[in-house]
């Protein structure tokens, strides 16, 4: 589903990603953890080309992202992204937030886009909120709406960048619940998150990133019980 080969990314002199290799199979859930500044967000942003990789290869669904012929906007449709800060569109109602992209990008008739939007709002438990504006929602509700918005493009892969770290503790659960359901439905997911409960329960694999490289990966049970690298151990001891 996703294949990343020797991915490098620099911002000027700052070499953020230093050769990343990762394969994610269809339906797999991979949780990425790592210290602040290690390049987790940059990695996700490279996968759907919000950042241009400096070198390396990224294949999504067997399409090489750096092949000049592929349409980047099409690739972005295959990979949905959920942001730490939600980034809902404040000038649109919740329903319009969700139906905008299907209507404009996929040229779906507005009624169909809205029907799809309503269906997704039901799925994330916001059926009664379609007519309100994002600022009228709690943080947890906003993030669920943002997940619905990403799903409206029928992505084959979902990227989550610390989806719960801007939330008050009591709202984290409702967002993780939606993500868990998504995982159970077979969605391929790459999740940057330090919610270890979620990683243990939902992840097929946990990956530890530090200073722009993937230091270690493993099944959650194995990974948390018996980390192999010193850096992983040091990091886990800080967050667990």
């Amino acid at each position, binding site marked *: 589903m996703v294949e990343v080969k020797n991915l490098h990314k620099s911002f000027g002199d700052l070499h953020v990603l230093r050769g990343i290799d990762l394969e994610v199979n269809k339906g797999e859930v991979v949780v990425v953890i790592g210290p602040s500044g290690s390049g987790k967000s940059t990695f996700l942003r490279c996968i759907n080309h919000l950042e241009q990789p400096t070198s390396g290869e990224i294949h999504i669904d067997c399409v090489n992202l750096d092949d000049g012929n592929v349409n980047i906007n099409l690739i972005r449709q295959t990979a949905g992204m959920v*942001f730490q*800060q939600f*980034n809902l*569109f404040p*000038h649109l109602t919740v329903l319009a937030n969700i139906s905008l992209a299907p209507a404009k990008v996929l040229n779906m008739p507005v009624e169909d886009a809205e029907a799809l939007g309503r269906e997704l709002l039901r799925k994330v438990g916001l059926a009664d909120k379609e007519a309100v504006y994002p600022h009228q929602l709690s943080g947890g509700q906003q993030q669920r709406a943002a997940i619905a918005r*990403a799903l409206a*493009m029928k992505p084959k892969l979902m990227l989550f960048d610390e989806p719960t770290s801007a939330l008050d503790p009591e709202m984290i659960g409702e967002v993780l619940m939606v993500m868990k359901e998504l995982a159970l439905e077979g969605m391929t997911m790459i999740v940057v998150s330090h919610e270890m409960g979620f990683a243990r329960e939902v992840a097929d694999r946990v990956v530890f990133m530090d200073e722009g490289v993937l230091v270690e990966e493993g099944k959650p049970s194995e990974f948390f019980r018996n980390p192999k690298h010193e850096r992983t151990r040091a990091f886990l001891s800080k967050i667990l």
Partner: protein
Amino acid sequence: MARYFPFLVRGVGITVQFTFISFLLAVMLGLVIALGRISGSRIIRTPCQIYIDFIRGTPLLAQIYLVHFGLPQIFHYRPVGYIDALVALTLNSSAYMAEIYRGGIESIEAGQMEAARSLGMTYGQAMRYVILPQAIRRVIPPMGNEFITLLKESSLVSVIGMEDLMMRAKMMAGQSFRPFEAYFTTALIYLVMTITFSRLLGRVEGRIKGSGRS
């Protein structure tokens, strides 16, 4: 003196006309220039930047003379004062307008563009459906100020013979030999216009704020 008053007031129509027409044209041209100014392509960005810097760094009076006397010399045509006045005012205001738009667009958090792009929208779609609708709300107050500025600055078109309020003030001053009364009355008429339009703009802004959602 009072018999000159209707004569002056007829100039108000011309002044308002110049102001409105060049404002509307500048609102459109300014957006195009602003989008060029923030374009990722240097070939588009640099000329827009130069245009903005040139207009903002030179006097409107010089621009009016350039359009009215300079261009006809180079391109060999007969200048039409009315058109040249509109062109000069529009070009001038559009540069300021472009900077107002740019400020509005750049005040929208980067996350909005990223979210739109991550949904597969093109840059143009993201601008049109996500960024500009939010930016418009933020540019309306400074555009109101630009309108008032334009109303006052339009008095300069009198130098190429437009019979606006200012021109009529000059004529009145010359005929009546009472320049103080002529120019003071005229200044007051400008003041009444700017105050009136400020009020109106304030009301428009209030309504937009009232309609909520940031």
